[in-house]
C-alpha cells in the first residue's frame, strides 16, 4: 500500500509545484484533496484516493490538477492538510475528508478562506443545518436519513412491525439510531431493544440475547466495516431467524471477506452503484455508475470497487460540471473563481452520478433523492439488488 | 586458653607444611572496591589454596561483605583476581563464576522462601543441570548426609525453617553446585551457640572434601579455630594476616576480637 501511494503523492506534488510555477501563463485549476488513506478509516480512504487518479485531467480546455494528501484519519492532520493546500498550493476547491470528524475540522478553515469544500463523509451534520460556514460545504455521500428511510420502507412493505437495534457506542451508532428512530416512529414501527457495542469487542452475546428475548421481527446493526460482522454472527449462532439489516457502512469487499457465510442474507440500503449491473436500463444513473465501476476495476482489479470510491468520483463529477460555468466568470486561482465555483455547484440540476442524481439548492448541499439508494441483499458472497 | 593454643599450634604446623605445595584456587592482588567516590576496600591481597579454610575477621563495617561481593562479581572491582590459574577479565559475571565452581552463601542466606527445601537444593544444581550434568539426586543425597536435619524437612517450605536450618539449607544449596571455592558470609550470624558449634563442625569437615573455603566472620574465636589461615580486615584494609594459631595468639587480635568476656562473637559485636 504505501509505495504506490507515495509515488502518486510525489507525482501529485511535482505536478502541483510545476503548476504553481506556471500558473499565470496557463491558469491551471488546482483541486486539493485530503483523505484518510491510513489509520482506522483506511479501507474507505484508499479507494477514494485511487479514484482521483481516474478523473479527467482536462476540463473545458483547462488543465485540472489533483493534489492528494493523507490525513491518517486524524482531524488535526486534516486541518493541517487543508491549511497547507490553501496557503501553499493555492487550490480553488478542497475535497475531503473521508470521515465526519475530519470533515467538520476542515470546514472551519474552508469557510474562513472562502474556499468551496466537498466532503466525502456520511453524516448529514456536515451540510445541515445550513449556516454561514456550511455555505461553502457540499457533500456527495448519501445522508444517513436517505438510507434509514429505505429500511423503514422495506419494513412497512413487508409487514415487519418491530425491530431491535444494536450499534457502535460512538457517533456512528448514535447517529444511525437517532435518524432511524425518528423515521420509524413516524411509520409506527416499534423499537423493542437498543443496544451498543465497541468496535473492538470480542463478544456481543449479552446484547444479542437481550435483543432476541424482545422477539423483534427484524434487527438493525448500526455499524460500519468489518466490526459489523460480529453481531450478525452472534445472532445466527443464537438461532435468530428474523430479518437482519446492515447499514451502507459495510458496503466493501473486506466486510464480505471477513463475514463469509455468517453475513449471508443480510439486507442493506446501498448506493445504486454497488449493484449497477443489476439495475434496469431505465435507471437514471445506471450508465454513469457502470462507467465508474468499469474504470475503477480496469485499474485495480475485478471486485475492487467500493461505495466510498464512488463518493470521490461524484465529487469529481460535481467539480467538472461546475468548472465551465465558473470559467465564464473568473480566472482560476482567484477569489472570484472560487466563489463562482461554489455558486455553480449549488445550482447543479439533474446531474446523474455514480450514487444517484444531484439536484442541489441553497438549502440542500447534498442533493440526492430516493433514487440514491436501493435495497441489496448479500447472497453468495456478493451484493444482489432486491427488486 | 592455653590448651586451645597448643591445639592450634599443632594444626598450624601441619597447615604450614602443606600450604606451600597445594594448588592456589584464588589469588587476589591489589583489589580495591569503591561505591561512587568512596573507596570501601583498599589494595587487598589474599590467597586461598585447595582444601584450605581461610578466614577474614574484622569488625562490623570493615568491608568483609563487600570483599565477598566483589569476588563473586556482584560489585565491580579494580585489581587482579586470578581464579584457578586464570586471570579474570573486567566483565566478571556471577553466572560465569558459578559455572567455574565459585559459590557464595550470603549473609542474608537468600533462600527461595516459598519453595520446599528439596526445590531449594535442586536449584543449587541449576547450573550443573544446564551444563548437561544429571547427578543432582546423588548430590542431594550427599548433602542430606552432611545435613540430616534437611532430609527430615525436605518437603517443608524454606521460609518456615528455623535460623539454624536456614543456614544449613543455604550451605547445602551451595554444595549442590559441587563448588571448588565456597565462600561463607557470617554463617554464625543470629544463631544459638549450640547451632554455631554444629555449623563450624560441618565447615571443618567440608574441608576434607578438598573444597577451598573462604570464611568471613565476626565470631573470630570460632572462625580462627577452624581456619588454617586468617586475615584481619579493618576499615577496608588488611591490618594483620597469618596462620590462624598465630593470629589467635596475637595480642592485638586478643585485645580487639577475642579478649573481652571470652565469648568470641559477642565481643566483636
Amino acid at each position, binding site marked *: *500500500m*504505501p509505495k504506490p501511494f507515495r509515488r502518486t503523492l510525489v507525482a501529485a506534488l511535482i505536478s502541483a509545484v510545476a503548476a504553481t510555477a506556471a500558473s499565470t501563463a496557463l491558469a491551471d485549476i488546482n483541486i486539493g484533496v485530503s483523505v484518510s488513506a*491510513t*489509520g*482506522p*478509516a*483506511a*479501507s474507505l480512504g484508499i479507494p477514494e484516493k485511487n479514484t482521483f487518479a481516474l478523473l479527467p485531467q482536462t476540463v473545458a480546455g483547462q488543465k485540472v490538477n489533483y493534489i492528494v494528501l493523507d490525513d491518517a484519519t486524524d482531524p488535526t492532520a486534516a486541518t493541517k492538510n487543508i491549511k497547507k493546500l490553501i496557503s501553499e498550493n493555492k487550490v480553488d476547491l478542497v475535497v475531503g475528508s473521508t470521515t465526519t470528524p475530519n470533515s467538520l475540522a476542515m470546514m472551519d478553515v474552508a469557510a474562513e478562506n472562502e474556499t468551496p469544500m466537498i466532503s466525502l463523509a456520511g453524516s448529514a451534520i456536515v451540510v445541515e443545518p445550513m449556516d454561514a460556514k456550511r455555505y461553502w460545504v457540499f457533500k456527495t455521500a448519501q445522508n444517513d436519513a436517505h438510507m434509514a428511510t429505505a429500511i423503514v420502507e422495506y419494513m412497512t412493505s413487508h409487514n415487519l412491525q418491530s425491530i431491535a437495534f444494536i450499534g457502535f*457506542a460512538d457517533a456512528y451508532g448514535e447517529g444511525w439510531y437517532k435518524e432511524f428512530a425518528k423515521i420509524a416512529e413516524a411509520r409506527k414501527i416499534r423499537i423493542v431493544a437498543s*443496544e*451498543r*457495542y*465497541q*468496535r*473492538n*469487542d*470480542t*463478544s*456481543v*452475546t*449479552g*446484547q444479542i*440475547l*437481550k435483543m432476541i*428475548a424482545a422477539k423483534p421481527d427484524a434487527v438493525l446493526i448500526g455499524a460500519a*466495516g*468489518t*466490526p459489523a*460482522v*460480529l453481531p450478525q454472527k452472534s445472532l445466527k*449462532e*443464537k438461532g435468530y431467524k428474523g430479518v437482519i439489516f446492515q447499514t451502507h457502512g459495510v458496503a466493501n469487499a*473486506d466486510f464480505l471477506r*471477513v463475514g463469509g457465510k455468517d453475513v449471508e442474507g443480510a439486507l442493506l440500503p446501498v448506493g445504486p452503484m454497488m449493484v449497477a449491473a443489476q439495475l434496469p436500463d431505465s435507471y437514471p444513473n445506471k450508465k454513469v455508475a457502470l462507467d465508474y465501476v468499469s474504470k475503477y476495476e480496469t485499474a485495480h482489479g475485478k471486485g475492487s470497487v467500493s461505495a466510498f470510491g464512488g463518493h470521490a468520483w461524484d465529487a469529481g463529477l460535481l467539480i467538472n460540471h461546475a468548472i465551465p460555468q465558473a470559467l465564464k466568470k473568473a480566472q482560476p486561482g482567484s477569489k472570484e473563481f472560487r466563489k463562482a465555483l461554489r455558486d455553480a455547484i449549488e445550482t447543479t440540476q439533474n446531474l446523474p452520478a455514480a450514487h444517484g442524481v444531484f439536484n442541489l439548492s441553497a438549502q440542500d448541499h447534498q442533493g440526492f433523492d430516493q433514487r440514491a439508494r436501493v435495497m441489496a441483499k448479500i447472497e453468495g458472497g456478493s451484493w444482489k439488488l432486491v427488486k | 586458653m592455653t590448651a586451645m593454643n597448643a591445639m592450634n599450634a599443632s594444626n598450624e604446623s601441619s597447615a604450614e607444611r602443606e600450604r606451600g605445595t597445594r594448588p592456589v584456587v584464588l589469588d587476589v592482588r591489589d583489589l580495591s572496591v569503591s561505591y561512587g567516590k568512596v573507596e570501601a576496600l583498599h589494595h587487598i591481597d589474599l590467597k586461598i589454596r585447595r582444601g584450605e579454610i581461610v578466614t577474614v575477621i574484622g569488625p562490623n563495617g570493615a568491608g568483609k561483605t563487600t570483599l565477598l561481593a566483589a569476588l*563473586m562479581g*556482584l560489585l565491580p572491582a579494580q585489581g587482579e583476581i586470578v581464579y584457578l590459574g586464570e586471570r579474570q*577479565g573486567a*566483565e566478571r559475571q*556471577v*553466572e560465569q563464576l*558459578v*559455572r567455574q565452581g565459585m*559459590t557464595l552463601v*550470603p549473609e*542474608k542466606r*537468600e*533462600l*527461595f*522462601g*516459598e*519453595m520446599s527445601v528439596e*526445590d531449594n537444593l*535442586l*536449584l*543449587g544444581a*541449576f*547450573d550443573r*543441570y*544446564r551444563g548437561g550434568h544429571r547427578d543432582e539426586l546423588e548430590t542431594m543425597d550427599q548433602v542430606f548426609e552432611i545435613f540430616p536435619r534437611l532430609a527430615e524437612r525436605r518437603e517443608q517450605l524454606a521460609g518456615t525453617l528455623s535460623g539454624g536450618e536456614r543456614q544449613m539449607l543455604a550451605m547445602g544449596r551451595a554444595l549442590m*553446585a559441587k563448588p571448588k571455592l565456597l565462600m561463607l558470609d557470617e554463617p554464625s550470624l543470629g544463631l544459638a551457640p549450640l547451632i554455631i558449634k554444629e555449623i563450624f563442625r560441618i565447615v571443618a569437615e567440608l574441608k576434607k572434601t578438598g573444597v577451598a573455603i573462604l570464611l568471613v566472620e565476626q565470631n573470630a574465636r570460632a572462625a580462627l579455630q577452624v581456619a588454617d589461615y586468617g586475615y584481619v580486615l579493618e576499615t577496608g584494609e588488611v591490618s594483620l594476616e597469618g596462620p590462624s594459631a598465630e593470629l589467635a595468639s596475637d595480642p592485638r587480635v586478643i585485645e580487639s576480637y577475642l579478649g573481652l568476656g571470652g565469648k568470641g562473637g559477642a565481643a566483636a559485636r
Partner: protein
Amino acid sequence: MDLQIALLLGQDGITNGAIYALLALALVLVFAVTRVIFIPQGEFVAYGALTLASLQAGKLPGTLWLLLGLGAAVALVEIALALRTRQMRRIPSILLLNCGIPLLLGGILFAIPPATLPLAVQVVLALMLVVPLGPMVYRLAFQPIAEASVLVLLIVSIAVHVTLIGLGLLFFGAEGSRTPAFTDMSFEIGDALLQGQTVLVVVASAVLIVALYFFFERTIYGKALRATAMNRTGARLMGISATMAGKLSFTLATLIGAFSGVLISPITTIYYDSGFLIGLKGFVGAIVGGLASYPVAAAGAVLVGLLEAYSSFWASAYKEVIVFTMIIPVLLWRSLTTRHVEEEE
C-alpha cells in the same frame, strides 16, 4: 433474564475469561521475573491471530519481515558484544539462531504455499513466526535496562506497545480478519447451542494452564523462573542469570499471547489493535491477583469475563466502564489489606 440466558452469558463469560486468564498468567509471570508490566502482550495476541489469517489467505505475513529485522538487530548487538569481549566462537551460533532460523522459516513460506497446508501446520507456523519476537524484543528493549526502576520499564513497555501497534497496522492493514473455526461441531444442551469452538477455547486454555503448572512445579527451568521471581539475588548466586530468566519469561508470555490469538480468531474478528483491549482485561485480572499470585490472577480474569458478559446484557453501553471500574475497589481493598512491599531489594 431467564435461566437459559444466564447460562449462555455464563458460557460466554467463561470463554472470554479463559483467554483473559491465560494473558493474566503471562502478565504475572513477566512482572514477577523481570518487573516489566508487559503492555505489548495484547499485540502478540493480534499478531498470532492475524499471522494465521494471512497464512490462510495465502499471503506472506508481515510478521516474517519483523522477525527477520529483529533477528538481524539482535545478531548485530550480540556480535558487537562478542567482538568486544573476544568470544569469537559465539558468532556462528548467534547468526544461526537469530538470522538462520528466521531465513529458513521465510524460505519454507516461499517454497510451500501456506494456504494449502493443514490447519495444525499453519498454527505451528504462525506460532513459530510470532513467538521468537518476544525474546528478541526483550533482548533489544529490556535487557539493556534490566536494572532500571519499574516506572522506566513501564515507559519502555508502552513505547514497545505503540511501536508494535503501528507495525501491526502496516503489516495487516486497518481491516480485521477472522480465521475459520477449528471445528464446526456444536452441542445442544437443553435449548442452548454450545459451539465446538467455544469448548475448544476453554479446554485449550485449561490444558495450557495445567501445562504451565507442571512447568513451574516439576521442571528445573520452571523452578528457576519462580526462584528468580522470589529472590533475584539468590537466583543469580545459583547461576540463574536474569537475562536467561527474562528471555524465558518473555518467550512463554509471547507463546501464551500468540496462542490465545489463534484460539479466539475464529470466534471474533481481530484487528491490528484488538489485542490491546484484550490484554488490558487480562491485566485487570492480574491486578486482582496483585501481579503476584497466579491462581488469584486467573480467577480475577475469569471474573472479568463474567462481569463483561453480564454487564453487556444489562447495560451494554457501559460495559467497558463497569469492567475497568472494577479495578478501583480491588486496588482500594488491596491497599488496605496488604502491607506495602518494597519494590527494590
